[in-house]
Each structure stands twice: as C-alpha cells, then as structure tokens.
C-alpha cells in the first residue's frame, strides 16, 4: 500500500482541518465537458463516472420515466457495440458498472483496475453519441422498468405514500413527478421518446467526467482529450430552466391507507431552499437544524418524544440541500403503541415550537460540529463517495469551490442562524402532512 497525503492533524480538535483535505483537480475540455480528478493512491483502483446534467425533472410533460428508461437503454449497444457488450467488457476486465438516475442528473460509472481507465473512456465516450436501438430492445426493457417500479414502489406502501406526498408538495415543479415515472406514462414510452431525450441532453457540454482513485490529473487530461474531447459540443443545448413553484399558500394534509401497512407514521415535509453556488449559508443552517432535531438519540425529537414523553418509537429529521431547485425539509414520527397519529403529530409540533422558543443547546451544537469536522477525515477513506459528492454537486449547480467550502460554511453556522432557519422553514402553508395507516385504523 502506498502512502497518500499525510494529514496535518494536531492533538486538539480546534486544529482539525475544516477545509476538505482530499486531492482534487478540475479543468474543462475545449468542448465544454467538465473534468474532476480525485486522487487516492492507496489501492490500484479507479472509479470512472460520467454525469449528465439531465434527470427526471428535465423530461417533457407526459413522458415521465424517460430519463431512467434511457439510462437502461444505454446498455443496449451502439453502432459498434452489441447489446450487453458494454457490461460484458467491464466484467471481463474484472470491473463493476452501473448507472443511476435522479431528478437532476443521470450518471454512469465503472469501477476497475486503474490501468483499464482508457478502455472505460473509449466505451463511455462512444455511447455518449453513438447509441443504436431497435424496437425489440424498447419493448423488453420497458417490461423491465415496469417490474422495477413494481419492486420499488407498487409493492411498498411507504413508497406509494412518498410518491403522493411529493406530488402534493410540488404544485408546479417536476420534482412532484416520480423519477421512475407514473405507471400509465411508463407503459407508453417509445423509442422516439428515448431518442428525443438522448439527442437533447447527451453531449459533452452537458456532462461532467469524474475520475477518482489511483490516477494522475495530467494523464486523465490526456485521455479525456483523446476520447471525450473529440466529440463536438451540442450547439442547441438550452439553458436549464424548469417550471418553478408559485407562492405556496395552503397547507396540505393527506391520509394514505393500505392494508399492507403494519406500522403507521406521520410525515411532514416543508418546501425549503437548496444550496446555491456562492450562497450556501441558509442551506448550511438547515443542515445543522436537521441534525439538532433528528440526528439520533441525543436529538431534540428523540429526547422529547422517545425519552421523555415516550410517544414515539422512532423520530427523524433530514434535509439534503444538494438540489438544483427548491427542495424539502422532512420530519417523521413513528408513534408508540396506543398513541394516535393525531397525538404523535401534536407532540412533534409542540417539540418544534419549544425548540424555536428556547433556542439551541450550545454543547449539542458543538458536538455536531465536531462530527462534521471528523467526517472530513473519515470521508477520505472512500474515494467512491468523494467522487459522488463532486459529481452530484457539479450536476446540481454547484462548483468544486462550493464543495470545498461547504465544511467551513457549516462550521460558521451559529445558534441564531439555526433558529432563524427554523422560523423561515417551518411555515405550515408550505407544508404537506401525511398519515400513513392501515385500512382499519381510525382517523380521529
């Protein structure tokens, strides 16, 4: 095992590095493709990823699921490669490959021995523009994505509930449409739909290359210019603008019943701002707020609802600011046996209200910041998650600098900032409250 950068860590926490310590280099090819290189020379392994700035929220109305459908179809061959050959070649080289689709991006990755990087670039750059599909591929693969929907959503009442909740949360923005697609629209997806999406969004000037592992930035640049740099930019690529939310002025409440629900719960989501490039402070305060409220057994909700009043078996709060457009701040309370959803919801609201009134426990805030600093050390152990962090951020409107500054921005959050963020975000007019329950339960 080779050595990597020696961490300059002193004996005191105050001296823990705030700045991300990872070795990151970034540059842009002449055709507009962005490149990020994350070095980790501990093992002779590389992760090669291409992220497109196009996801489910970029689909045309009525074509829900096409971004994810196309992701599947990218394994179906190009003008020079047979269907399935891509994964076969990766496997024949001892590698692992897959892909993922989100609201804001679609990504493809391979994890291989470092000396196979060139082969990965050759194949990935090929399918960026040379996809070749026929009608038979479409029909079989459409069955596969419908079975995927069955598995992830139709067989899972919690997933069906979340789908309805998102639809209620976003009045106008496509974040209200499921990534995998509405079933009735998935069933009608056509070859033309997939190719239209491909032609519109798959181009070097709409993509980010992330290479992480046992590589040198100069060598990556040479290879990237050779394989990706030769692909012309798409001159018709338009500005990324989705329909935005109007003012949300009406609280939404929903009840979702399903015989398969064994453990009812209350969920609350609030519309919340996302991390913006160069202005991440509000999102940082919300991130800390979620940790304070729902980050484990010492959090405010656990303390109140699980330890003191024992009204809940589980509580949580979470917020992810990494999003291109407005996102959500989420809370969930799973009531104890004999506690109604009404009582659980009231207890949650009482705890939130008391928190905003009484302010932040200084020691609790310190502990959270200590853990954030420490996570900068732990996160260096997984080059793949670092690659994901940069790829996702760049696909969602942030810069490499924003990612590097994020720990500093989090560390600068004060108790006052947190309370101000709570007052801002806990606006019931912008919220959806959902009760997930079985068929029999009463709604009193």
């Amino acid at each position: 095992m080779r050595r990597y950068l020696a961490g300059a860590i002193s004996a005191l926490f105050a001296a823990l590095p705030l700045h991300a310590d990872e070795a990151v280099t970034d540059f842009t090819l002449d055709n507009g493709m962005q490149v990020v290189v994350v070095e980790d020379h501990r093992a002779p392994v590389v992760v090669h990823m291409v992220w497109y700035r196009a996801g489910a929220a970029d689909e045309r109305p009525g074509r829900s699921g096409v971004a994810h459908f196309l992701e599947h179809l990218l394994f179906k061959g190009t003008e020079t490669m047979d269907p399935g050959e891509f994964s076969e070649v990766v496997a024949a080289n001892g590698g692992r490959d897959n892909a993922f689709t989100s609201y804001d991006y679609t990504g493809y990755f391979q994890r291989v021995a470092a000396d196979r990087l060139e082969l990965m670039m050759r194949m990935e750059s090929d399918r960026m523009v040379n996809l070749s599909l026929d009608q038979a591929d479409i029909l079989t693969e459409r069955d596969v994505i419908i079975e995927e929907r069955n598995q992830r959503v139709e067989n899972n009442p919690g997933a069906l509930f979340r789908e309805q909740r998102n639809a209620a949360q976003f009045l106008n923005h496509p974040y209200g449409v499921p990534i995998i697609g509405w079933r009735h629209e998935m069933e009608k997806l056509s070859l033309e739909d997939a190719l239209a999406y491909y032609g519109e969004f798959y181009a070097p000037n709409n993509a980010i290359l992330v290479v992480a592992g046992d590589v040198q930035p100069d060598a990556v640049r040479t290879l990237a210019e050779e394989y990706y740099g030769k692909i012309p930019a798409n001159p018709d690529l338009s500005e990324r603008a989705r329909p935005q939310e109007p003012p949300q002025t009406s609280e939404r409440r929903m009840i979702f019943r399903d015989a398969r629900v064994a453990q009812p719960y209350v969920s609350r989501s609030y519309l919340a701002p996302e991390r913006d490039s160069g202005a991440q402070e509000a999102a940082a305060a919300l991130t800390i707020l979620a940790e304070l409220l729902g980050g484990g057994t010492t959090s405010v909700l656990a303390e109140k609802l699980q330890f003191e009043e024992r009204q809940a078996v589980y509580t949580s709060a979470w917020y992810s600011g990494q999003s291109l457009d407005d996102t959500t701040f989420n809370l969930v309370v799973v009531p104890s046996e004999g506690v109604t959803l009404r009582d659980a919801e009231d207890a949650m609201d009482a705890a939130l209200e008391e928190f905003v009134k009484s302010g932040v426990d200084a020691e609790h805030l310190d502990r959270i910041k200590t853990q954030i600093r420490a996570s900068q050390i732990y996160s260096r152990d997984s080059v793949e998650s670092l690659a994901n962090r940069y790829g996702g951020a760049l696909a969602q409107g942030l810069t490499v600098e924003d990612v590097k500054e994020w720990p500093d921005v989090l560390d600068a959050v004060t108790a006052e900032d947190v309370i101000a963020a709570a007052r801002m975000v806990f606006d019931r007019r912008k919220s959806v409250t959902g009760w997930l329950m079985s068929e029999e339960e009463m709604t009193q």
Partner: protein
Amino acid sequence: MIRFVLTFALLLASTIARAEIEVQEVTSPGGIDAWLVEEHSIPFVALELRFRGGASLDAPGKRGAVNLMTALLEEGAADMDARAFTRQTEEIAARFNYDASDDTVSVSAQFLTEKRDAAVALLRDSLISPRFDEDAVERVRAQVISNIRSNAKDPDTIAGMTFDRLAFGDHPYGSSRNGTEDSVSALTREDLQEAHGAALARDRIYVSAVGDITSEELGELLDALLGDLPEHGAPMPDKADYQLEGGVTVVDFDTPQSVAVFGHQGIARDDPDFFAAYVLNHILGGRGFESRLMQEVREKRGLTYGVYSYLVPKDLEALYQGSVASANDRIAQAISVIREEWARMAEEGVTEQELEAAKTYLTGAYPLRFDGNGRIADILVGMQMDNLSTDYIVTRNDKVRAVTVEDVKRVAERILRPKDLHFVVVGKPEGLE
C-alpha cells in the same frame, strides 16, 4: 461489432491489479489474536470484532434475546445512561455499530487517532458493562416489536422467513433472529444478561484492525478493550437439519408483484469443491447482467428487474438460494425459466468461454475490494472466521484460475438438484398450483 475491445482486454489481462496489502498477525500481551494492516495516511482506525455464535445462541423460548441484547449495547454502559453514552461518543466523533446475525455478533468501530484512548474506553464499557436499564430495554423492545410487525407485512421478508421456517423448523435458523412479538415481550433483564454472557466471550472472538496504529499499540488496545471479557461463553449451537423437499409454497398476500425465494441445500465454505461451486454460481446467477438467469429472465424476456442465485454457507448448514420478483401474472413463467436453467446447468455444466469470462471477472474484481480501511478490516475478520490464513489474499486468485470445465460439471451435478428446488412465492401468483 467492436473487436478491438476484446483484444485490448486480453492484452491487459496479464497485468491485472493485485491487492497490495501487508497483513500482520498480532497477539496482545494478554493473548488476544488480531490481524492488522497499518495504513498511516489517514489519521483513524477501523476496528472489526466478530463473536461466533450470534443469534443462534438464543436459549429455548428466548428467541430474540441476542438481537435485543446487541441493540442495547449502545444504550447505556458503566456509569453512563443511554444518552450520556451517545453524547460522549459524539464528543469524540467515534463511530460504533453493533449488529447480530444468525452466526455472529458484529461490532464495527472507527475512531480518530487523537481520540483513540477515549474511544476504546467507551467501546470497552459497552461490551463489558452494558447496563440494560429498564427504560432503555422498554424503549428498544418497542422498536424491535415495531420491526417485527413491519416485517410481517413485507413480501420479501415473508418469503425469506417462510423458506427458513419450512427448511429448519424449530432450529434457530428456522425463525427470525428478531424473535416474535410474544417471545420479545417476555424477555427479562436477566435473559439479556444471560444472552450477553453467552454471546460475548474471548473463546469466540475474531479481530481485525486497519489504519493509523502500530502492532504494539494494537496489542495494548486489545487487552484494554477485551481483556475483561469472560473466557468462555455458551456452547456453540447444534447443526441445523434441512427438512424441505422440492415444490412450491404460495403465501397469499395482496400485492401486485409476487416475490419468490427459492433454494435447496448448498455447499460448505471449507468443502474442497467450494471454489468450483463459487465459479459455477457466478455463471448461473451471480451478480451482474451476464449471468444465465439474468440473461434468460430479464434481458431476453423482461420478466423481472433482478434475479440472483447465491451460495449461503452458514456455520450450521449451507444453502444454495436465489430470489426473483415478477408481476403476479408473470411469476409462473419466471419460475419455469429458472427451473429450466437450473436443470440445464446441472446436466451440461458451463462452456469453456463462460468459464474464462467468469475467471477473468472474479480474479480482476477481487483486488478491487480492498479499497478502504473499513472494507479491508471487514474482509480480514471474515477470512479469520472462515479459517483462512493471511496468504489467502495472494493465493485466492490462483484457486479460482485452477477451476476447470470438468470441475464445474462435476460440482454442478453434485450440488444442483432441480428436483429439490423449493419456491416460496408471496403474492397473488397466477398459474401456480
């Protein structure tokens, strides 16, 4: 058709990456063995502990005791109640994880170099002096019962649990390690203390450490952390007796997609044919789009999102299992394709080409697993539990390469038993008797 790619691949096959890690065998002054990889570039250590026996050590009538006990290790220890323990862990940014499985209790820890002593002291308290305070027991018991109820309505869990019950009856392998609502409700504090004494002892422990620590420091750490554990725990549980015959069991459950778990007896980890079986399974239904099951059920027919088979060599019995999920009106077809493939493999074995592709993948993928302190520590402790020596990391790929087409054919005939294959199907399947 792109032929250059294959040529390119073959050219590179000879330079395939090797795992370059150096494992030291360490024995502490107090006599505790561990494997260590020193990796000083990031100032933290990943520590993995395994106690053999796990949830199968539950005493008769006390199903769920080891699981609940394990969940309570981080819920108060020595002079700290649950919240004090968590606060102290957070203050030093240590990360502890406790888990019970059928054959093991696992403890994973990560801590910063500069807080090593404090982290070890906390972890020690949780392992040696858990409090099992009444309020903590009640709180966590309610969480376990909530999980048991949710599992009872989850098709995947129902399928797995039904298969286990039919296969193993009253043996601990035949029921969920969570226990039942009744058994968990009846557990007392004494039951938990007994489970603690039964499962956490020095005569069954395996340890690995990877990160910023020397062998001498690790020796001292081991004695401080584990020296006060009792020498002996409960006797190891009896072997499980596989009782299931071939067939189909349908569990009626109103959901749109049927979930199936299938299998029969498998092959032990220390069987001389294990490597041939491992390669065989990779070709039949291992991970990846290239397996025969994935090709036939998903790629050609679009009947599922995923179909897999897996060797499950547990300590007390070995299974060969698989899983698939298809819409209620398509599951019968998926099952019939799987049966055909199972029989075809048993009869014909694999082709030279399939074998070569599998070997290239398996030997190339192996070194890629060693890519982080936590993951390496996990692999090393697993190797110890499988009675492997440290040089296995170097020799493993040779064992894979040594497997021949004849080996696979012989092992396929031996371990694949199409007639014994039993499918448990949860849903509203159409066309299944």
